[in-house]
């Protein structure tokens, strides 16, 4: 099980991509061209959720608070 988990509020996302650049673990990517949320924006998806460390960097950079990050409390 991944150490971290992100929850994306799709309709808050504006597809700016700032979080992508911040994630060192290539967890996320944007939705396909043409696939957009109710405001017309492409949005963030967790393409490789298993890689998520729960470091929270993505959420730190998100201007729209579209990402919630959870981290495992279990010591590994």
């Amino acid at each position, binding site marked *: 099980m991944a150490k971290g988990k992100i929850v994306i509020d799709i309709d808050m996302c504006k597809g700016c991509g700032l979080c992508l650049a911040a994630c060192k673990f290539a967890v996320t990517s944007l939705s396909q061209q*043409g696939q957009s949320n109710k*405001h*017309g*924006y492409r949005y963030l998806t967790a393409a490789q959720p298993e890689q998520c460390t729960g470091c929270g960097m993505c959420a730190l950079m998100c201007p729209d608070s579209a990402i919630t990050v959870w981290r495992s409390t279990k010591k590994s």
Partner: protein
Amino acid sequence: MEHRCIFAGFGGQGVISMGTLLAHAGMVEGRQVTFFPSYGIAMRGGMANCTVVVSDDEIGTPIVKDPTVVVAMDEASFDLFQGRLSAGGLLFVNASLVNKRNSRPDIKAVYVNATEIALKQGDGRMANMVMLGAVIKLTRMVSIEAVEKAMHKTFPQKLQPLIGRNLQVMKLGFEAAQ
């Protein structure tokens, strides 16, 4: 005769250039024209639209509450403007991106696979030209020649070589519309 047109779409879909081209073409033909952009903070959030009035008489307000023509380049624009069209008006829908169908019996909807057609010609961003072709076909607001002249007048130097291609794409729209 007065045509009151709203062109609406997502930023980058070229609705403003569509509008200015039409306005210029109207001027070329010696008609009364006004062009009115959405401006200020309303530009935010991706939506863009503009209003063009082409008329034989002096034009009242260039802001139009009851358009006779609406061009909806995407779904959000379709949702916003379908209801505003005046009875008997024409609704041009970019069917490539809009999945909805017109629900008003008192208007005529025209579906054009504009983005698709443009993509086939090598550039999806020319979908606006496809739609413009469709509009002038069904409204006869201005002639193709007038639009061509308008292109020569308004395209910046470096885009002038593209006039031919734009015209061609527009004509495809002209043909597709019915």
